[in-house]
């Protein structure tokens, strides 16, 4: 038996199942990152010094995060993610306008930008490791690696989902019925909501970890 409201919105709630589902999922994600941010605040309030003792050849006290982290690179990454959110909306809008070729272009760009983000992130991590700065060095770096690492896992998840909808997932659209096209467009909207959330988490991470 067909599940109702898979594609069309239920009249009295105004949403379809998948859209409500993704919002609920994102609510739980807010609680996940909320818990981590709360832990960060808790640890920082309790710390004697922040970021704390670091090795720069010899042991010195780091006063600010930007002595350790690379703010320009992180700024570039912020721009990359914001751009990818824009291309994600464009991909969805292209489907709404029935321009499948444009969709392929914008979705491809979204995936490339996300990969670019991870490459930059990889350079950042590599630079820390060259200094022998690890998650175990102090709690500042612990928070940095765990929070940005978990975010990077979310980015990777988004890339996998988007790559599926760029490649094999397009079969649904290509079947060509109005219902299939509407269904596929909904899926991209839902994937987009997730992607914007991942973007938003970074927009919180960047100032709270790199700047203040």
């Amino acid at each position: 038996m067909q599940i109702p409201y898979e594609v069309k919105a239920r009249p009295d709630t105004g949403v379809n199942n998948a859209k409500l589902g993704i919002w609920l999922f994102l609510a739980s994600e807010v609680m996940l990152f909320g818990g981590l941010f709360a832990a960060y605040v808790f640890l920082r309030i309790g710390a004697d010094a922040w970021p704390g003792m670091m090795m720069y050849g010899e042991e010195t006290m780091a006063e600010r995060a930007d002595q350790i982290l690379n703010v320009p690179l992180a700024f570039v990454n912020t721009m990359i993610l914001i751009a990818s959110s824009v291309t994600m909306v464009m991909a969805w809008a292209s489907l709404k306008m029935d321009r499948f070729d444009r969709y392929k272009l914008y979705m491809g760009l979204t995936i490339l930008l996300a990969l670019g983000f991870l490459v930059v992130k990889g350079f950042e991590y590599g630079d820390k490791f060259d200094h022998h700065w690890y998650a175990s060095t102090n709690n500042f770096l612990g928070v940095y690696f765990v929070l940005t690492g978990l975010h990077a896992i979310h980015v990777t998840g988004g890339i996998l989902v988007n790559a599926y909808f760029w490649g094999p997932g397009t079969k649904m659209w290509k079947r060509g019925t109005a219902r299939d096209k509407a269904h596929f467009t909904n899926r991209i909207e839902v994937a987009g909501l997730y992607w914007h959330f991942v973007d938003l988490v970074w927009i919180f991470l960047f100032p709270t970890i790199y700047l203040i």
Partner: protein
Amino acid sequence: MEEGHSHSDAHSAHKEGFWRRYWFSTDHKVIGLQYGFTALLFLLFGFGLMLLMRWQLASPGVEIPLLGALTPEMYNQFGAMHGTIMVFLGIVPLAVGAFGNYVVPLQIGAPDMAFPRLNMASYHFYFWGGVVMLSSFFVPEGAAKAGWTSYPPLADIETMGQTMWLWGMVLLITSSLLGAVNFIVTIIQLRAEGMTFFRLPFFVWAQFITAFLLLLAFPPLEAAGFLQLADRLLDTSFFLPSGLVTADGPLEVAGGGSPLLWQHLFWFLAHPEVYVLILPAMGIVSEILANNTRKPLWGYRLMVWSVIFLGFFSFIVWAHHMFITGMGTTISAFFQITTMIISIPSVVILSALMITLFGGSIRFNTAMWFALGFLPMFGIGGLTGLPLGLAPTDIPLHDTYYVIGHFHYVVAPGTIFALFAGIYYWFPKVTGRTMNETLGRIHFWGSLVAMNGIFFPMLIQGMPGVSRRLFDGGLTYSFAEGVMHYNVVMSVSAFILLLFQLPFIINFFMSIKRGKKVEKSNHWESTTLEWSAAPTPPIGHGNFATIPTVYHGPYEYSVPGYESDYCPQEVPIDLSTSDTAKSVES
């Protein structure tokens, strides 16, 4: 209903192979049964661990047949895993995964859950989480030993079993997340026509609020789990303070972390978790009471508002588990106040259920006996909790057997009785056969007496301060001398409890094959859709021959002037004709 492709699995269950039908099924009824059987096995296993511990407490050092004498390490493993298994692998999966999955779509008139494949994934995450937990007994130095709460610093420096515990929890949290999203979307989106929110059976409301608790309270524990994994695997020190010294000398970590951080994150989950344990039980009891008193539930709307209030407030009471941590009197005062406030809606619900009994012509079947047993037992559990919610009385009682007695009264003769009630009540729905009443009553009365024999002495033992988690039960402490003999009472009661589960197990399996066949689809003459509109035993995937339309509230029993003493939700009647009927509706 929308146009489009019909799924090939609809109404063709008999064509599918064994694996597809029973293991990779997307039918909510099959998944509910998968959850149910797995959870019952885990409950039995967790109970078995406890029996070994009770053997040790009653007769410290005496060898157990086949296993030998318990070592302190084994005792700690069994204790930690008993708690984890009972809560995360036994009761919640049975209450939510099994009953919720099976009953909710039927009660709201839905063909299935909103996301059938996520539902399947949810079960498989749960199953593999359980496998990881169980296999942790076989890694070097055994399973987690830091208690079900996994407090650091101990948990941070524990053996490999603790890492397994954390990975197991990550799987279980993923499972409950998928389940929670599914339940909420199903209840909001897939209600049949006419099934407004205030026409939902109370059981559905309880599951709805439970799903929100699971959705929003579990992620902070997942966050805490990741941080503890980092502490264990990446040598960070989120939960390790500076200058910590263990039996092996000073700990070689950066330090600067806080063990309290874990407790906050853990209890932010684990207090709502208490309501995850109890709300579905209240839902089950409500269904059975209304059905067997042949009366509307007293104060249905009041109960719904209470359960919503409980849901909200359960997020701001967590630190009443932490009064002795020295977090400060201001914070303690805040959490005392919220804790006292949250007891009000629980009392409202329990009182409403009691009042429902007044003037009813009660049918005493086994399901009803268990539901009736739930009321005073949960009452004891709730009332013994009040002294723990106030810092001055909590401080001497903290970490004693009093606490264990308190929450076991809530969960064991409370929730587990409600779950048994649910099994007896919905068994005919699933199988088309009834369970044996005589064996059922032996099961009920034996369990009732045995459970009180186990848990009431705990309250007495806790008063002089006998601490929980003592390997020898307190032999070495002089203050325990006067109450040590209760250990024998409790342990004997525990084995008697095991004995009285045998009639249930025999009854359960015999009734599947040989139970009396139900004479009609609506076996209990119930008003809710799962009995009145869905055929018994159920047809395949899809639930209803045609989706019913709902015309009135869920508990229209004994409507004056109506031909029978129950009026199912899908039968239109004009309730406005009689004054009495009108008051029933409001």
